[in-house]
């Protein structure tokens, strides 16, 4: 019986390790050919590793970032890896980042679930000679070299401007998002600030609803909010779980007068735009974030003039509607 238990325990461990591998580091990018073998600083060594680290790993939002990262890496002929934790948990992201840094890669591009919580880990990595840039969500007090993002507050502002353009008479808006997540909070703040600064738009934030990072919770809470305040005529979803839940909530409430604007370009969101359930989604320059992050990391790791690095790069925003949704399918 004991030997049976041991064998089964061993099997379990192997399966668990497989699971961890699947959740943790993702696929390695194929290194591009390096026929010039180091004759130019713009051709790296295939053994050089560069990581992208995110929270809520696996979302299409980060996939698009990593696509840019990977393609830039292939141009330099180096190896890229993706790592992250599937949850928005700050502590878990710190752990993943520390584990990645312990492998001593040449560079890490990281998006921070929390600015302050990531600061120490980033500083340690930089002190160990690892090039670090932040993208999408910053850790401004850390020693990271630069920050590449659309700026979540600016993205929130753009969402408000767009909503005002399609709702010329204004309306009451509910913001649905993961309360406490820095990127969502900044988007919410940007949206609300714009509506306050532009009262002539007629847009007013009447409710902030917590989606708790999960679509069933998002639906439950948004549904209750619609019951509590039937004057709501627009829902702005500031993250992916919210975006996937809102159309169902509106349908279940039997409302046809509610405009939904979302963030991110998950395939399911694009489908909902095409079938008219969602008016538009905001695509932050995710590909650019990844592509430029890799470029800067490579420059720093190869002692190219780092002083030329700007402290902030704006990677732009696109409004995706039924007209241009096809371009965003991955």
């Amino acid at each position, binding site marked *: 019986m004991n030997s*049976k*238990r041991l064998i*089964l325990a061993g099997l*379990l461990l192997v*399966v*668990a390790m*497989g*699971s*961890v591998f*699947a*959740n943790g580091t993702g696929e390695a990018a194929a290194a591009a050919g390096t026929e010039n073998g180091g004759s130019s600083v713009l051709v790296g060594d295939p053994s050089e590793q560069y990581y992208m680290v995110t929270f*809520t*790993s*696996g*979302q*299409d939002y*980060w*996939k698009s970032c990593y696509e840019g990262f990977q393609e830039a890496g292939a141009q330099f002929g180096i190896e890229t890896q993706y790592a992250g934790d*599937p*949850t928005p948990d700050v502590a878990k992201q710190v752990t993943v980042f520390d584990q990645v840094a312990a492998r001593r890669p040449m560079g890490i591009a990281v998006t921070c679930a929390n600015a302050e919580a990531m600061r120490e880990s980033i500083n340690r990595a930089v002190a160990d000679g690892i090039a670090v840039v932040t993208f999408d969500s910053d850790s401004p007090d850390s020693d990271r070299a630069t920050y590449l993002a659309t700026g979540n507050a600016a993205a929130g502002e753009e969402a408000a401007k767009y909503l005002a353009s399609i709702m010329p008479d204004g309306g009451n808006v509910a913001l649905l998002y993961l*309360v406490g997540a820095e990127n969502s909070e900044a988007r919410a703040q940007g949206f609300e600030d714009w509506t306050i600064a532009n009262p002539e738009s007629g847009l007013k934030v009447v409710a*902030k*609803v*917590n989606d*708790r*990072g*999960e*679509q*069933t*919770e998002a*639906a*439950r*809470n948004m*549904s*209750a*909010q*619609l*019951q*509590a305040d039937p004057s709501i005529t627009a829902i702005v979803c500031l993250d*992916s*779980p919210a975006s*996937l*839940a809102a159309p*169902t909530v509106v*349908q*279940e*409430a*039997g409302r046809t007068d509610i405009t939904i604007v979302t963030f991110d370009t*998950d*395939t*399911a969101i694009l*489908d*909902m735009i095409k*079938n008219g359930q969602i008016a538009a989604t905001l695509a932050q320059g995710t590909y650019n974030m990844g592509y430029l992050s890799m470029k800067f990391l490579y420059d720093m790791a190869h002692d190219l003039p780092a002083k030329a690095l700007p402290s902030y790069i704006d990677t732009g925003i696109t409004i995706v509607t039924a007209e241009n949704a096809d371009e965003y399918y*991955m």
Partner: protein
Amino acid sequence: MEIKDLGRSLLRKRGTTVFLIIIASVVFVSILEPIFLRWSNIRSIMIGMSSDGLMTIAMTLVLVLGGIDLSVGSVAALSCVITGGLYLSGMDIWLAVLIALAVGVLVGLFDGIMIGKLGLPPFIVTLGMMSLARGGAYIFTQGSPLSLSGAPESFRFIGAGYIADVPVFFLIFIVLAAIFDFLMKHATVFRSIFYIGSNEKAAKLSGINVSKVKIWVYIVSALLATLAGILSLSRFNVATPSLGSGAETRAISAAVIGGATMTGGVGSVLGGVLGVILLNIVNSALIMLNVSVYWQDFVSGFILILAVTIDFLSHRKKS
């Protein structure tokens, strides 16, 4: 029996206190905000609790057995993406549902054998399964939600349809809750779950096949979670690998509020249902009463601790 005795006997029942707290909450919120009792709001609370409700039935069974199942939310996600993924690959949706249910049986069988036959701790086994199933859902979808636009109406009906303006999802939950509550009270094989949860050694000595019962309970638990995932897919028309994150803690809360204990041998499906109703009413009430989004978790936690304390103290006093 006199009305006075009937009243006493009812009060002695664990669920009665929770029921009274629910009534008091509804009356309180309705006075402050009368639209709380509007049918459309009740309907939205019904559909909102259905997925958690199915997982609460599952959790009540395993808690009474003296175990725990931390994998319910992840298993729901796995079944959701398996059904969605197979349908998108061209398979008939109902065949995809059957395959997802079969995977649910295998998951439960695995948990059951590990816990029932090998004697591994349920907490660790189901914690591992929580990661395995969630990891499987991420691998299966490569992280992206799968859109099911064009799914057959017959499939949409089970999660998004209505019978007499009552959500079908909720009806399925309530019917299953009634069946399991009845079985837990009257069927010999289900009664043995209580015996095992109270005293496993004595149950074994009295001739109950403990490992077999454990295996069956974990299979039933995984199947209920699988059903929650399939019905959520039908409701949202999107297969999301992150579905059900944190659902296990909500199911545990609901079951414990309803009288189940973490040490086994005590609990009822009816109590679990009352627990999930209370959780959802509190959630809806906080939004109805316009409590700031930053205060909601705090107030919700406070009310739940208060509810459990009142229930515990009144029960202790009576017994």
